[in-house]
């Protein structure tokens, strides 16, 4: 374990680590563009210059190996001057169109420029203009903004494995591009937008949608598959504008898939169910007449499932399940896309044992379906047709809802608080990012109403469940934090 002196403080570094990693691990700020913990180092942006005792000039810390007794200085006038100069070069051909750049507000180039440089440019000549075009269905490039850090190129090669991107031309004409006839269209393509330290690569779905400083960000978890990638939801005017991944080494590392990111449109669907019919008490009254069945989707949160379980016990009703499986398991670096397209199947199995099919032949049926893309599968329709009484909670209007005597509109995952257990048995929190439509109440509220218990928040329900469900023993929202926690017995 080499020991280095970082800004006069002695720190021990794991062997093989670079100076930049040592700085990052020990909290010394070193600005950088091309270096990313999830990608191989390139050492080309020259922003991470630091002073090391082995060299007279400044060295790029991202490629500099730590050796014993190395003295590293990340501050001071010499280092600041180096960063200033590199920034000056970077801004030579970078257009100053921050006002119309969607990256503004979360742009590293902007931040470092504010940190290290005044607003004056000494460059009086013509800038090099590079292409602006769509690189694929989701990604657009503003070539002039590109600082050729090659993060995106390395991502496509090393993580996505598809290598659609390349750096073309050389010198100050270097710019990221795709092969003329092959657009970037892989399942994780939008990560290049997050990786881009400037506004060169832009998510076409987010294009001109919001200035980020007006938007509100909520830390949550993606519900589009059983992986449960940690995400940040950006919302403005009660609309989800985009989702970006949060780093969680145990779940998704730095990445998330495009499908998950873009699976938000149903929230603002025209067919969204907004009005209720009847009440939870009506449901309870009908259920207590006996011969009642419950259909539960594995999209529901842990809290909701637990309440449904209590209802099933109270009503002595069998519980059948709605699930959704599609495609194959795909792995991209530290990211796995699961075929199970519902976020909480694992917990359903822990709570109910093996998942049973939709109960047939019940006189009354209560369907709790939160799966956005699942609309009345045949076995469910058959069971519903045979039932005299039908209560439905769903996101969207459909044949089932038309038939139902009691309709309780569902909240989408971004509109409520709760928890999911991912495929590895990790319990993670989802948080309310936007308000549900006016008349829509959270499921936990009306499920408790049906139970006739004192209404608790999702957190309160979770605490109750944690007392009784062994898989959740010892957990609470505080312990879950924003990275989640592994469940017991996993």
């Amino acid at each position, binding site marked *: 374990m080499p020991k280095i002196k970082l800004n006069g403080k002695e720190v021990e570094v794991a062997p093989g680590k670079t100076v930049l990693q040592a700085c990052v691990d020990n909290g010394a700020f070193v600005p950088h563009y091309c270096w990313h913990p999830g990608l191989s180092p390139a050492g080309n942006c020259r922003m991470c210059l630091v002073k090391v005792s082995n060299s007279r000039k400044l060295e790029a810390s991202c490629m500099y190996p730590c050796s014993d007794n190395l003295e590293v200085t990340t501050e001071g006038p010499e280092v600041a001057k180096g960063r200033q100069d590199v920034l000056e070069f970077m801004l030579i051909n970078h257009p100053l169109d921050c006002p119309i750049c969607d990256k503004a507000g979360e742009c590293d180039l902007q931040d470092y420029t504010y940190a290290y440089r005044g607003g004056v440019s000494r460059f009086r000549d013509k800038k090099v203009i590079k292409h602006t075009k769509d690189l694929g269905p989701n990604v657009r490039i503003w070539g002039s903004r590109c600082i050729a850090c090659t993060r995106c190129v390395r991502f496509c090669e090393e993580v996505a494995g598809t290598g659609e991107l390349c750096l073309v031309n*050389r010198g100050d004409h270097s710019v990221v591009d795709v092969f003329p006839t092959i657009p970037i269209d892989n399942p994780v393509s939008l990560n290049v937008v997050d990786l881009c330290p400037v506004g060169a690569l832009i998510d076409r779905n987010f294009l001109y949608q919001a200035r980020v400083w007006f938007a509100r960000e909520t830390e949550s978890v993606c519900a589009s598959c059983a992986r449960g990638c940690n995400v940040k939801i950006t919302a403005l005017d009660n609309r989800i504008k985009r989702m970006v991944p949060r780093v969680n080494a145990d779940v998704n590392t730095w990445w998330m898939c495009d499908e998950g990111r873009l699976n938000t449109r149903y929230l603002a669907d025209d067919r969204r169910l907004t009005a209720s019919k009847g009440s939870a008490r009506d449901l309870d009254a009908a259920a207590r007449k006996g011969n009642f069945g419950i259909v539960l989707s594995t999209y529901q949160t842990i809290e909701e499932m637990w309440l449904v379980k209590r209802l099933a016990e109270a009503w002595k009703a069998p519980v059948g399940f709605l699930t959704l499986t599609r495609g194959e398991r795909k792995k991209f670096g530290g990211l796995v896309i699961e075929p199970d397209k519902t976020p909480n199947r694992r917990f359903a199995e822990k709570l109910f044992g093996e998942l049973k099919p939709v109960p047939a032949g019940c006189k009354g049926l209560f369907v709790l379906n939160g799966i956005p893309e699942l609309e009345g599968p045949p076995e469910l329709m058959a069971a519903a047709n045979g039932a005299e009484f039908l209560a439905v909670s769903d996101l969207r209007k459909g044949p089932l809802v038309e038939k139902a005597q009691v309709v309780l509109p569902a909240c989408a995952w971004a509109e409520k608080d709760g928890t999911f257990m991912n495929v590895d048995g990790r319990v993670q929190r989802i948080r309310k990012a936007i308000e549900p439509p006016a008349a829509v109440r959270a499921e936990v509220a009306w499920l408790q109403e049906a139970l006739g218990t004192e209404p608790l928040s999702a957190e309160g329900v979770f605490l109750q469940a944690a007392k009784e469900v062994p898989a959740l023993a010892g957990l609470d929202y505080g312990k879950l934090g924003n990275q989640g926690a592994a469940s017991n017995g996993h």
Partner: protein
Amino acid sequence: MNREFGAETLVELERICARYPRREAALLPAMRLLEREFGCVDEPGMILVAKLLGVSPAHAYGVLTFYTHFRRSSDAKVLLQVCSTLPCALKGSESLYDHLKKITAGEPAITLKKVECLANCDRAPCLQVNEEYIDNATPEMCDQLVAQIRAGRWTPPGQIYSVPPNTHQPVLLRHVLEAGSETMEHYLARGGYKTAEEIVKSGRNPDEVVETVFKSGLRGRGGAGFPTGQKWKFLAKNDKPRYLVVNADESEPGTFKDKLLIDRDPHQLIEGIIIAAYAIRSKTCYIYIRGEFGIGAWILQKAVDEAYEKGFLGRKVFGTASEIDVTVHRGGGAYICGEETGLLSSLEGKRGNPKIKPPFPAVEGLFRSPTIVNNVETIATLPHILKNGVEWFRKMGTEKSPGPKIFSVCGHVHRPGNYEVPLGIPIKELIYDLAGGVRGGKKLKAVIPGGLSAPVFAADEVDNGYVKVDAATKAESRVPITMDFESIAGAGSMLGSGGVIVMDEETCMVDALWNTLRFYAHESCGQCTPCREGTGWIAKLAGRMERGGGRDDEIALLDEVAANMCGRTICVLADAAAMPARSFVKKFRAEFEAHARAKKCPYKHGHAPKPEPAGVGSH
């Protein structure tokens, strides 16, 4: 449209691929195949080779756009490339280009391009027609050429090699002018391959050879001047294959010695390769030759093939158990591939981006294995050292810079050309005595002593020596400059690859700098920010000054920006661009000020005004 190779070509491609440990390394040769088969490298062609080599088409596209020498689908049948770099520009290539532009306008069979240095500086201005060189081009020759092309009966004139008379006894260049010197027979007849054969057959410990070279004090002839033996000793000792790479990417403007060695005496190089490979225990050698040297590559390949036939290369070298495989790898036209790590990247089938050192190539180089990269001249010197002994070698040159060295003298001198002289001769002797001084009876103004990237000397320094300040006494004295590594470094410049560019009193130094910086802006690989943006910036600054749009305070800005580029990048191309800029500003500041004051160039010269630097708007 889909492109498919014929069966024969596919076999050839497989043979090429087999020469590299990774298939994708054959990308550049595969593109040469595309050029040969389909006349150009286009999108369907790239998809084809990408599929065959197992890389993504985007990778192939990125690599193609990095290099300038491949024929694009937009290029016409005849490609006219006019060298516009300083040595040619000093001889009026700009007006030649303008003339050509006029006479080829609207001619569908001709594509006219301005290119950077073609390593033919002694016969400037020079242009390349497809693969052929045309020396000392004049407007009349151009008229004739274009007329011939129009008539469809163009025959390549062939290059005339000449070496000016030299009072010193040449070693490497001794036989280059003899007829058939490039053939195996000629080389064997003059006792070639004997030294290599003796060493290989003797079964000597290779370390002894290394020691001999180390003791000889041979220093790299490519530019940095690093002791060759020392470099060999740095080789990492592991069980990975070792590679020998011969740097034949002679692209430093003002240097044209390797081209002569390759074209006229390839076997001398191959013998050196056998010795070097034996010494460093390498079984594989790649000769990375400039893309522009199409004919050179052909000659070299022929020589290699002959050596294989004779059994000097291949499985059983000289009948022993030694193995040496030599592959001629042709580049694609990029100055940066002359930098050793850039060369290795290019050789791996990637963009020629230099890599960060450490690790040095001797530890982790080509295909992540220990690699030695040596210049052509360095390798070609080896047989002579081992044949004649260390004592013989050290008798020539100085204590720290022993041996003979080829200096390429070009620009405004009477007799431009390659001069092989012992290191350490006075610069005055080289310029005035050997090269005959400034032509036309004009006065000397400036000399760039070691290729375009070396800081410039003013005439006064050349004539009267540089000012040396004694560290202890602060006393100033004039020390004459001699052509060796130490003296030139002491004078604030560098010997580099030995390309001496001479400028007479009528040369506008601002224009010369602009030309220089344009070259670097065009050749920067675009990896590191300070170089990518800085080379373009200082080129534009110098261009604006030359055109009269500069301001007084921008002279200091030019110097400062150049200073900011130094030492901040992976390779030294940024420094190579910055050093001339800083030295020009330092030594000829008055000319810059005159430009700013007059708001135009005060010199009357043959260079037509150019609207934009060549590095901008092309590609």
